[in-house]
């Protein structure tokens, strides 16, 4: 091919390091990391961002996204982010949390952070299992879903029901934007990016708390091929966790 005919169709976001990730094949963390990095670039925030890492598969986010970062204890990222934002309101502050981190051990921190209307953006990755520890039951595990700690499937009369965080947080006055998105196909990825940018915007425009829940595949712990895992998002997750925007103060 002549040099003149070359067309660049994809490049790494500027704020993303060009290194291999530790994620399993078919894991959606990589896509979600890229979307976050693209949003940081598009709002020109790399120099001004402070990232709060959490405990779980995404703990190494600071190795991939080249911004100032602090690591939070398990579940406490919204409290750490509150401390960061109160200390430096001029910075863009985001945290990236998994479902065990945010919806189980850190439920109190996320609810109160949202309710205070902290000017922070929380990215929530819901793959219905504890990934890093080997696929145990999460607060978002679906009823009937087998995991290493729900070997007979999650029982509604014993373990209860999966928490719908985007709806719960959307119901709070302090939340300015709350949405649930997926990245299992191109169309959903594009929608996800739009929602993510709004969750950035509500912080940048000082409107309130911003939240995006990503439905995410975990082929390893679902014991599925990446393609089947993508399908599961559509056939099993979406009927219980509907995609949509549950709060949007930008358009109010």
């Amino acid at each position, binding site marked *: 091919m002549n040099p003149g005919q070359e067309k660049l169709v994809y490049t790494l976001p500027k704020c993303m390091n060009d290194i291999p990730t530790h994620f399993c094949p078919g894991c959606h963390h990589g896509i979600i990391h890229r979307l976050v990095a693209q949003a940081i670039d598009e709002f020109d925030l790399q*120099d001004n961002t402070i990232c709060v890492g959490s405990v779980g598969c995404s703990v190494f986010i600071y190795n991939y996204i080249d911004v100032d*970062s602090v*690591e939070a*204890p398990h579940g*406490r990222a919204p*409290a750490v982010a509150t401390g960061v934002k109160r*200390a430096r309101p001029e910075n863009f502050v985001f945290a990236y949390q998994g479902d065990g981190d945010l919806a189980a051990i850190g439920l109190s*921190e996320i609810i109160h952070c949202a309710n205070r209307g902290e000017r922070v953006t929380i990215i929530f990755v819901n793959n219905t299992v504890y990934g890093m520890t080997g696929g145990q039951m999460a607060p978002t595990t679906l009823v009937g879903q087998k995991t290493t700690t729900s070997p007979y499937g999650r029982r509604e009369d014993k373990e209860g029901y999966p928490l719908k965080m985007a709806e719960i947080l959307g119901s709070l006055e302090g939340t300015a934007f709350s949405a649930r998105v997926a990245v299992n196909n191109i169309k959903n990825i594009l929608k996800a990016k739009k929602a993510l940018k709004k969750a950035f915007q509500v912080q940048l425009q000082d409107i309130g708390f911003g939240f995006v829940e990503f439905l995410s595949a975990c082929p390893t712990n679902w014991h599925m091929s990446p393609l089947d895992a993508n399908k599961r998002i559509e056939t099993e997750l979406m009927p219980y966790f509907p995609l949509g925007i549950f709060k949007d103060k930008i358009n109010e």
Partner: protein
Amino acid sequence: MSENKERLLVKGNEAIAIGAIDGGVECYFAYPITPQSDIPEYLSRELVRLGGEFVQAESEIASINMVLGAAACGKRAMTSSSSPGISLKQEGISYIAGSELPAVIINITRGGPGLGGIQPSQGDYFQSTRGGGHGDYRTMVLAPSTCQECYDLTIWAFDLAFKYRNPVLILGDAILGQMKEPITRWKEREINPNEGAEWRLTGKKGRKQRILKSLYLDEGAMEQHNLRLYKKYKSMETDLKWEEFMVQDADVIAVAFGSIGRIVKSTARKLRGQGLKVGVFRPITLFPFPYERIRELARSGKKFITIENNTGQMVEDVKLALCGICDCGFFANMPGKVSTPEDFIQPIKDQFN
């Protein structure tokens, strides 16, 4: 009185809050608990008036993690609580120590275990001086015995926290927090605005990314990290502080800290009146602990008794200091009991036999 000072009549808790302001606190996060609620009440009013940040957090756990976040930005950050609340903060304190961040934590202790009671107790000595949370770390621990020391040591705590990039704990108790006495307040105190400039998070503009963390997975990395922390904790011995009261010619030295240290001084005065040569050794830094000085005094032939408002915690450090040179008596003033100087007369007298 110089122009740079003023005289105030305040409670110990207020002295700590005022000390925090004069120590340059910028962010304060807390949750109410007796007997320290005067601190959040004072700072929610005065710190906010001065332009600082105050959040009444949803829990002790959240408040210590807010401290972690603000500390990562190089701010002078503080939280305060009382024993059960401090237990909840231990996770965060461990992370702050592991991430090497400066923070000041106030513990106005109450009795335990469990919900215990709001009466005085020194039952948190072990928790304070042995790290308190998981992992092999230490916090610096300062034990005031007067309202003036509540003020002075709080100011010093912030300087130490930044000097060592480490949590510094003020270990008070219900007696100290709730009693009122005059203090001298400094009017002006400069704090370097570039404090923490070489590590704090600001956004990476014009420099490389900074990561503040406590996770070390690579082979050998955690070993190196722990070795560095160990050396740091050893180096804190340069800031050892204690008070010696009529120790020079004493035959028996009573070792006590905090409010008990102060009460024992009154006992020593009474016993001196009876012709008994009693001195008091009051550690002010509980970690690092003044082992070497106690050892020196032991070598000169003095006898020791440790008196605490618990069933025997600091006495273990005193015995470590004595290192077989001599034994150490112990008198336990049970948690929940407010003691008087008379309570300690007989236990100290017994050491002369």
